[in-house]
């Protein structure tokens, strides 16, 4: 074999060209190795163009559209007016926006309360063989379509659903009771679908806590409750924060849950956007609602970022 021609370069970078290689080895090797920043930008360009064209420019367009006006037959008149945002500030819309914030917050909170003991169980109480299975079982409903998750609850809660059938047969009810179309059914649907988003980051945070730290706390005389409150809970905080943001943000834009498990009385921001774009064909107003959604998303991420910074500066 040839002698090693490569100097001990930094990060696998070659500084000299090896003589006597087959000709197809040589061209474009600067591109593969990334010898210049240009090579890196060039290789990144297909993926970044994809995102820039199909995501960044549509979002920019939506922002511009939110200042436009609607003409006859849904025609868009480009202008700079705040009329759409003025319309959003009407009580009818404000109610829906407030409801969306409340439902999203409630969903995140309920997911935290239900998910924390579950994540604790998987991280600390389950034996390692079963752990994989439990995590897999947690992710499975999450990987099936949201439609399936919603459909399940339609069968259970509906007027001709399982609970009604059981209660009628047992004589608890004399006429079917509608569990659907209530805040309860919508929040239940949201909690059911978004629960894994809370449990997985919580599990990741709990799993990272060194067992020796917990033992040390016990050795120093702290009881189970004190160890939990003073050691485990503070260390699981990053998991709580990312779980909350992972649930809160998509809940703001969810429209399927309220469409099937709720009704006009429980419609959320996502339903308004859906309605303005597809049924009412008032795209500028829909765009303004979308811009509002993105504003709420960004303030959520901002608070999340601050929590994270605080965490890292404290450690």
């Amino acid at each position, binding site marked *: 074999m040839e002698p090693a021609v490569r100097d001990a370069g930094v990060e696998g970078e070659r500084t000299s060209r*090896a003589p006597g290689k087959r000709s197809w080895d040589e061209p474009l090797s600067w591109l593969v190795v990334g010898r210049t920043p240009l090579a890196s930008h060039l290789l990144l360009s297909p993926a970044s163009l994809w995102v820039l064209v199909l995501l960044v420019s549509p979002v920019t367009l939506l922002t511009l559209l939110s200042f436009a006006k609607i003409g006859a037959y849904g025609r868009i008149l480009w202008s700079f007016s705040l009329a759409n945002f003025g319309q959003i500030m009407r009580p009818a819309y404000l109610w829906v926006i407030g409801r969306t914030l409340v439902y999203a917050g409630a969903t995140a909170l309920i997911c935290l309360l239900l998910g924390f003991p579950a994540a604790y169980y998987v991280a600390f109480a389950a034996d390692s063989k079963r752990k994989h299975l439990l995590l897999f079982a947690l992710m499975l409903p999450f990987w099936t379509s949201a439609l399936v998750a919603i459909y399940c609850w339609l069968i259970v809660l509906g007027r001709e659903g399982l609970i009604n059938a059981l209660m009628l047969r047992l004589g608890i009810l004399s006429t079917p009771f509608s569990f659907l179309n209530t805040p309860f059914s919508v929040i239940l649907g949201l909690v059911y679908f978004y629960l894994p988003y809370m449990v997985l980051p919580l599990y990741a945070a709990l799993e990272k806590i060194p067992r020796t730290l917990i033992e040390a706390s016990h050795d120093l005389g702290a009881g189970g409750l004190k160890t939990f409150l003073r050691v485990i809970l503070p260390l699981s905080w990053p998991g709580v924060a990312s779980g909350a943001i992972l649930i809160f943000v998509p809940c703001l834009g969810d429209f399927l849950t309220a469409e099937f498990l709720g009704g006009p009385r429980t419609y959320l921001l996502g339903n308004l956007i859906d309605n303005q774009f597809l049924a009412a064909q008032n795209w500028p107003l829909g765009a303004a609602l979308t811009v509002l959604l993105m504003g709420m998303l960004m303030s959520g991420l901002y608070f999340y970022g601050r929590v994270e910074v605080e965490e890292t500066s404290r450690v």
Partner: protein
Amino acid sequence: MSRRALRIYGVFFYLFLYFPLLVMFAFSFNNASRNVVWRGFTFKWYARLLHDTELLWALATSLKLAVAAAAVASFLGLLASYVLARHRRFRGRGFYAGLFNLPLMIPEIVMGVGLLSFFAKARIPLTFWTLAASHALIALPYTIGTIRGRLLLLKDSRLEEAAMDLGATEWATFLKVTLPLAWPSIVAGALLAFTVSFEDFVTTFFVAGVGVVTMPIKIYSMMKFGVTPEINALAVCLLIFAALALGLNQLSSSGRAIESDAGPA
């Protein structure tokens, strides 16, 4: 909290997660068309699925779409994750990493209405291919995440350095060491992208043109019509598909370590 109380809670928690799925599963075999009262065992809803031509068309569309989206997302993801994991640090790396995460952070409804307005403004008609391009966008963070993780592991293993020390050229190292060792993650990423595309509803709902009906869109319109056991049977099939895809993904992405791959064949 005692261990025992936790165990009991764990059981109830998983019951809550799986109870509705079990109800759906059970009633997919129920020999009654509307009520959830048990009227005997039947396979007829599954048989009916096989004879529903519209549904089979939707399945074919979804499969084609998922293959196209997975192919594009894997190719773009491989290029991008290779640069992010292996090239020397350069200015703007953080910008790219953030950019590729955007499709995960932005709610799907925003992407849906954004793409709809974008295609309308650019006067691009909504076809199968615009939908495939949109699905590739949604799947991109998943392929990048999967492949990049593997490439970073590979960097730690220093197998490429060894190949170069033994006289392999840069291209030979890339083609004979890097690419084969990264292959399981490319497959895992493609599988993930396939699943993401196959199950996507929200973006598809806004961007699919009139003639393009995917499986989730078909389910949506069936659900709008009302609850029927046929949907139960269909949902059970989707659940089994998701379990298989998720299992395969876990096997191919985390099953084998770099070292054992590199062992003598």
